[in-house]
């Protein structure tokens, strides 16, 4: 039985390109080790799953689900994360690169600062490992923005939900540089948010946001 095999997507910038806000050492470990491990474990689990489907072993299929969710989530989250970051010197890292999204943010939270404060508070409220996301939610009548947090590597895959940008709040995302000072990380990450990518995800379809995953098979 064959199962898809995912590969590590290339970073769209150099490991040191997000300095001084995220160190090159963090980026290299985070991408080449942590993200790679999720992919390696995902591929192994998918292979086992394909075998279990082939042999109609339903108990094994069920027992593999949590591992698939965790490792696939890790792959999905990190793939989206690398794309929604950009070097601070880039014009993509200015919120002016997302005019339509910004308009909706202002309509939702009042102004950009209030949105950032709400996002930062959500990030700092995570107990343990997890992520904070700005997402687009299709209600059936309209599209809304929402800030959500997810635990561990749970991905944004709910019906009608499109991730706009995410911030990794696992300690491995900041600890080597910020140690226990995660509030400073949550402050500095705004310098490297890729608003151009955010605008594209906001205006595009759900499938568009996830196309990086198809590209890394």
């Amino acid at each position: 039985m064959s199962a898809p095999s995912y590969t590590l997507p290339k970073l769209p910038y150099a490991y040191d390109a997000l300095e001084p806000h995220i160190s090159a050492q963090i980026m290299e470990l985070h991408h080449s080790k942590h993200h790679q491990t999720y992919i390696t474990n995902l591929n192994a689990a998918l292979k086992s799953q394909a075998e279990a489907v082939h042999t109609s072993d339903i108990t094994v299929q069920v027992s593999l689900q949590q591992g698939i969710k965790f490792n696939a989530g890790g792959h999905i989250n990190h793939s989206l994360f690398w794309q929604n970051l950009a070097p601070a010197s880039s014009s993509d890292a200015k919120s002016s690169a997302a005019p339509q999204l910004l308009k909706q943010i202002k309509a939702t939270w009042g102004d950009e600062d209030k949105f950032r404060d709400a996002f930062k508070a959500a990030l700092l409220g995570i107990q343990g490992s997890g992520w904070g996301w700005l997402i687009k939610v299709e209600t059936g009548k309209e599209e809304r923005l929402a800030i959500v947090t997810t635990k561990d590597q749970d991905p944004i895959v709910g019906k009608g939900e499109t991730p706009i940008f995410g911030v990794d709040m696992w300690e491995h995302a900041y600890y080597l540089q910020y140690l226990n000072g995660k509030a400073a990380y949550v402050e500095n990450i705004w310098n490297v948010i890729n608003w151009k990518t955010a605008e594209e995800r906001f205006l595009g379809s759900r499938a568009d946001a996830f196309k990086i995953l198809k590209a890394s098979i």
Partner: protein
Amino acid sequence: MNSTLLRSTALRSALRTAAPKSAARAGIAGTTFVRGKATLPDLPYDYGALEPAVSGQIMELHHSKHHQTYVTSLNNFSEQLAEAQHKEDIQSQIALQPLINFHGGGHINHTLFWENLAPTSQGGGEPPSGQLSKAINDSYGSLDAFKEKFNTALAGIQGSGWAWLVQDTQTGNIQIKTYANQDPVVGQFRPILGIDAWEHAYYLQYQNRKAEYFKAIWEVVNWKAAEKRFQ
């Protein structure tokens, strides 16, 4: 359970509820609630004393910053809880419960963790003896087989959390259990030995190579402390 490091009256009571003793429970239920403030316990060894298994830098940050933050937040939310109870504001009381669980759990877990580690010069890494040793051998075959199972449990934690050797207060049996985030070992189970699998516990020294941390930590496990908790 040896919880001399836990100085707060309220927390000592909370910990005692894990033990099936009616006298300890009466301590909470039968009195006017006077809160003791939780304080950061002193480490029973120097920050550098667990090297090379755990670096001095990790120990200092872990104890003086991370554990301190749990203590500070626990006191803060406990105060808010007391106020909400005073006002009979049930919504606020419920909203505060996850925060008490998280920060109170962080305080309990770290307090027990410092105590169940020791430098090799103070017995760290020396194998258990007596009843606990017998229970481990009866349950897992050998200490090495137990460690292997424990390390597999640690490696299997998805996100932040802890692995514990616990004792079932109903059956007396021991088992390995993992807990998410700072969920403490309370209720049916009694904590015997805990290992912190949060990234802050090892990342500065081991980075993504957490299996190496899980292997090294046994060199500084204080089995004497674990034996005292085992009943």
